[in-house]
């Protein structure tokens, strides 16, 4: 293995590979930071460019887009309260409050360093433990996925604010939103009220844009001119040191492991990983009251987890030929176009190329750190723009991003409606985070309930499977901790 790794390293350190990684990262950082654009669009755009490249630089370019975009989603989440990608949805919760407190540089550096470390741990795991992790991931059937989503939903108890019933109501509201459209089991239309528009359901990206960006526009517009928020100043020098990150070592390690486990399970995604990790960090923190108000630890947890997913999603794809999401499906397509097929052959017959890609993944994380600093400086100019220019600009950009999702003005309408819901809900003390968790996990939860009952006859099977029992036990503990913290907060 060491020989293969060294051969891979020499393959990565060629001009071709380095240029490919830098181009991929540049595209990824731009697409991730701009709301509505994501790694899938970036990879799709660069895919034709890779046809002329040899397999290793081609894959490294696309992986650069994937990693860059996953990290860069946090930049807009922190600076303008708009997650560039769904993976950065949990980043808003503590990132934007930090910006409001004038700590934008710190938040941006925390996101960058936590992302790099999360990606590095994931990359090392991909390099050394890919076959073993793939075996564990294979043990995940629909009952395990179902209990994993229950675990995710249990986080609602911790992010409900002062009133757990308000949080739960919003969580159920999110689930209801995901019921609109086509039933995952039999293709029956649900809650469409005869509208053709509602048959396709509600996409996550327009909903995200609405919940965060559009609601923020309404909030800013209601303020009288003299009291508009001053844009934050961003200087990244000494904002957040590696030493400080080391003080969160347990949070980093736990979040990275959670990200790797979630990422290795096909069909889950980094948004789930970041919420799970955020909720776990809050429930085990010595200062849970700081979460949602600009907690560095919360930001470290969500950013480490969502980037740890990137390497782990490649494990089932490379070892078993199972693409976990849209991005890995395109990456698998790119491999096939290069004349390679995923599976054991990649680690035997094509080992030099495969190890070049695996080592390259680790190198991408290091390059991402330096390019990330550059991108922070570049995007920080956004904050110097006066609010009366910035807010309308962000609004139109987000709306065009929502439009680009389905090339339809309906997605823009969905974004505005969700913005309105979030704006009104916040006026009455309802948190939108539980609704977001409901939207993210709703359909996955239902699909796996359907599969479990279809395969095993009833849901009682989850009580006979060890992994399910572990998830259920953790969920119960988290609900109890969440309710206790909420009660204490309410009593104060």
């Amino acid at each position: 293995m060491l020989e293969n790794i060294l051969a891979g390293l020499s393959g990565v350190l060629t001009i071709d590979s380095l240029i490919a990684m830098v181009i991929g990262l540049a595209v990824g950082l731009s697409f991730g930071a701009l709301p509505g654009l994501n790694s899938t669009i970036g990879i799709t755009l660069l895919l034709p460019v890779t046809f002329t490249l040899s397999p290793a630089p081609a894959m490294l370019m696309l992986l650069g887009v994937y990693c860059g975009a996953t990290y860069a989603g946090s930049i807009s989440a922190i600076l303008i309260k708009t997650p560039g990608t769904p993976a950065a949805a949990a980043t808003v919760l503590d990132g934007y409050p930090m910006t409001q407190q004038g700590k934008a540089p710190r938040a941006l550096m925390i996101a960058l360093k936590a992302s790099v470390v999360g990606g590095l741990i994931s990359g090392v795991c991909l390099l050394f433990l890919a076959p073993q992790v793939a075996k564990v991931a294979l043990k995940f059937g629909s009952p395990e996925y179902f209990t994993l989503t229950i675990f995710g939903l249990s986080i609602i108890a911790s992010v409900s604010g002062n009133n757990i019933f308000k949080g739960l109501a919003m969580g159920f509201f999110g689930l209801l939103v995901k019921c609109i459209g086509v039933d995952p089991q039999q293709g029956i239309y649900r809650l469409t009220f005869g509208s053709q528009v509602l048959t396709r359901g509600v996409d996550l990206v327009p909903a995200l844009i609405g919940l965060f960006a559009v609601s923020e526009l309404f909030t800013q517009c209601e303020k009288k001119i003299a009291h508009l928020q001053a844009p934050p100043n961003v200087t990244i020098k000494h904002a957040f040191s590696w030493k400080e990150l080391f003080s969160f070592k347990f949070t980093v390690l736990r979040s990275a492991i959670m990200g790797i486990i979630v990422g290795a399970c096909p069909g889950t995604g980094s948004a789930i990983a970041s919420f799970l990790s955020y909720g776990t960090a809050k429930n085990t923190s010595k200062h849970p009251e700081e979460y949602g108000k600009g907690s560095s630890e919360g930001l470290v947890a969500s950013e480490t987890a969502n980037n740890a997913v990137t390497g782990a999603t490649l494990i089932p794809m490379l070892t078993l030929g199972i693409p976990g999401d849209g991005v890995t499906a395109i990456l698998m397509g790119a491999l096939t176009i290069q004349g390679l097929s995923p599976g054991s052959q990649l680690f035997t017959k094509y080992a030099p190329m495969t190890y070049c890609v695996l080592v390259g993944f680790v190198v991408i994380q290091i390059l991402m750190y330096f390019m990330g600093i550059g991108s922070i400086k570049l995007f920080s100019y956004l904050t110097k723009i006066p609010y009366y220019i910035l807010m309308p600009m962000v609004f139109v950009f987000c709306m065009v991003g929502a439009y680009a999702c389905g090339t339809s003005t309906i997605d823009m309408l969905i974004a505005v409606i969700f913005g309105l819901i979030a704006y009104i809900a916040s006026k009455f003390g309802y948190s939108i985070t539980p609704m977001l968790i409901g939207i993210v996990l709703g359909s996955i939860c239902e699909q796996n309930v359907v599969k479990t009952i279809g395969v095993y006859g009833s849901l009682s099977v989850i009580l006979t499977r060890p992994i399910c029992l572990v998830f259920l036990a953790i969920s119960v503990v988290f609900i109890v901790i969440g309710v206790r913290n909420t009660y204490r907060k309410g009593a104060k």
Partner: protein
Amino acid sequence: MAKNYLKENIFTLALVVLSIFVIVNIPSQVKESLLSASTISPRLFPYIASGGILICSILNLILDFIGMVLKVKRGEEIPEKKRNENVSVYRAIGTVALVFVWLFILEKIGFIISTIIILFVLSFMMGNRNKILLVLFPVCFTLLIYFVFGELLHVSLPEILF
């Protein structure tokens, strides 16, 4: 007290109405399962979600009411929500109306003209009084977005209909 209670719980009451509306309409909106009894009904999740909203909202209303009654019994004053002088809900309502108008005219007069108009109005509403900036910013930004999405990313933005 009743007025204050209702004012504080408008959104919760709206959730109650919404969930009842959904529960009543599920039988007509979701056909029953066509497959065998071993599969779950497509109505299950909509019922769980809307039932959950209903139960949580009612519990919230009850707990809020009990809290308010206890405060009155103890002779405590129920604090009136302070009105924020720096915030005007009418401005927010105006913005919402403006956004809906933009969505309505977008497909009729095309992306470029409609977006220049909304950017001009929004920027003015948020305090931009620089005449040059008021004109230059909407025009330049709209054309930039149109070029990036339309030409570089091949996203066909709504064109003018006439």
